[in-house]
C-alpha cells in the first residue's frame, strides 16, 4: 500500500513538472509560430496573383463554397484563390491556386506536402543552375517551381490531361510547351504519376466546383 502511494506520488510530481515546462514553452513560442504561419500564407498568396493586386478574404459555407477563400482584383482582372487539399501518394498535398472568372489558372504554389523524397516531393522542385563548385555557400535559387508553373493558362473547367510522352516540362522548348497548353495538358513528374494526378484532380473537382458555386 505504502509502495503504491510512493509510486503514484513520484509519477504525479514528474508529470506535473513536465506539463508546466511544456505550457511555458507553448506560451513563449505561440506568438512566433502564429506570425510565421501568417507570413507563410501571405507569401504564398502574393505568389499566385499579379503584383499589386488587392486581396479580400471571403468566407463560404464550407461545403459547396470553401470555408475560406480569397478574391483578388487588379484593374479589370478578377481572380479567386482557393486553398486545395488533395490526397497524393503518402500525404495530403495542400496548394493555393488562383483562377480567373473563366476558370483559367493564373498561378499556383504548393504549401505543404510529404510525398516520397526525390519522386513525388518534386512537385515543389526548383531547378537550380548553381553548382556546388561555384562556392559552397552560393544560394540555391528561389523562385517558382516548374511543376506548378506549367498549370498557368490551363482551364479547370475542362479536363486537364497528363502527358507522359514528352518528358518533363523544364526540358521542353517553347513550341512543345505551347502544344501542351493547347491540349490543356501538363507533363507528369517521372515516376510520380499519383502525385501528379492528385494535383490535377484537385483542380478538376474542387476548384471547378468552388468556381461554379461562387459564380452561380
Amino acid at each position, binding site marked *: 500500500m505504502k509502495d503504491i502511494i510512493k509510486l503514484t506520488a513520484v509519477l504525479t510530481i514528474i508529470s506535473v513538472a513536465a506539463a508546466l515546462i511544456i505550457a511555458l514553452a507553448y506560451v513563449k513560442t505561440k506568438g512566433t509560430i502564429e506570425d510565421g504561419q501568417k507570413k507563410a500564407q501571405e507569401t504564398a498568396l502574393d505568389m499566385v496573383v499579379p503584383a499589386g493586386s488587392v486581396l479580400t478574404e471571403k468566407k463560404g459555407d464550407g461545403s459547396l463554397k470553401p470555408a475560406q477563400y480569397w478574391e483578388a482584383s487588379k484593374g479589370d482582372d478578377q481572380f479567386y484563390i482557393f486553398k486545395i487539399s488533395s490526397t497524393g501518394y503518402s500525404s495530403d498535398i495542400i496548394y493555393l491556386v488562383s483562377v480567373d472568372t473563366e476558370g483559367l489558372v493564373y498561378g499556383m504554389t504548393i504549401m*505543404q506536402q510529404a510525398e516520397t523524397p526525390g519522386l513525388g516531393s518534386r512537385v515543389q522542385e526548383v531547378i537550380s543552375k548553381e553548382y556546388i563548385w561555384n562556392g559552397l555557400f552560393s544560394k540555391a535559387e528561389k523562385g517558382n517551381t516548374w511543376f506548378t508553373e506549367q498549370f498557368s493558362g490551363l482551364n479547370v473547367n475542362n479536363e486537364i490531361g497528363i502527358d507522359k510522352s514528352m518528358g518533363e516540362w523544364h526540358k521542353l522548348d517553347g513550341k512543345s510547351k505551347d502544344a501542351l497548353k493547347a491540349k490543356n495538358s501538363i507533363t507528369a513528374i517521372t515516376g510520380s504519376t499519383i502525385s501528379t494526378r492528385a494535383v490535377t484532380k484537385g483542380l478538376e473537382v474542387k476548384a471547378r466546383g468552388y468556381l461554379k458555386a461562387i459564380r452561380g
Partner: protein
Amino acid sequence: MIREELKRGIFTENPIFILVLGLCPSLATSTSIKNGIGMGLAVTFVLACSNVIISVVRKVIPDKVRIPCFIVIIATFVSVVQLLMKAYLPALDKQLGIFVPLIVVNCIILGRAEAFASKNNIFRSLLDGIGIGLGFTLSLSVLSIIRESLGSNKLLGLNFIPGYEPMTVFILAPGGFFTIALVMALVRRYSSRKKEA
C-alpha cells in the same frame, strides 16, 4: 576524461554503426544533408538534456516506475524542441515532419537513459549525451552526403556533377539500407583490424 567520453560516443560506441540503434529515423532523415544535421542536432539536444535530468533524479525514482518516468522526461524535451523548431526553423520542421515527435521513442535516447544516465553522475551523463548525440549527427551526415550526392546529384541543395543522372534509389528507403550497410561494414572492418593490431 572529457575527451575520452566524447570519443566513446562518436567512435567506439557510435549509436548507428556500432550500437545499431535508431535506424528508423536515420533512414528517413538522411536523404539530404540539411535534414540529417538538423535531426542529429535535435536528438543531441534532447539526449543531453534528458540524460542530465534523469541523472539528477535517478536516486528519487523508484525502480518499478523508472521507464514511465524516463519517457515523460524525454517527451517533455521533445515537445519543447518541436515548439522551438516550429517557431524559429519552420522550414526544417516541415521537412522533418513526423520524425521530430518520434524522437520520444527513439531507442538511442531511452537506451542511454537506461544504460548510462540512471547509473552515472550528472557531469558524465551530460558528456555521454553530447558524445552519443554528436556521434549520431556525424553518422547521419556521412550517410546523407552519400545519399544526397548519389541519389539526387546535389550537395546542400546545390547541383553536384554536371550531366550525371542521379540514382533515385539512394534517396528511397532501399538505398538507405544499402548505404548504412556499406558504411557499417567499412567501420567494422576498420575497428576489427585495429583490435587485432
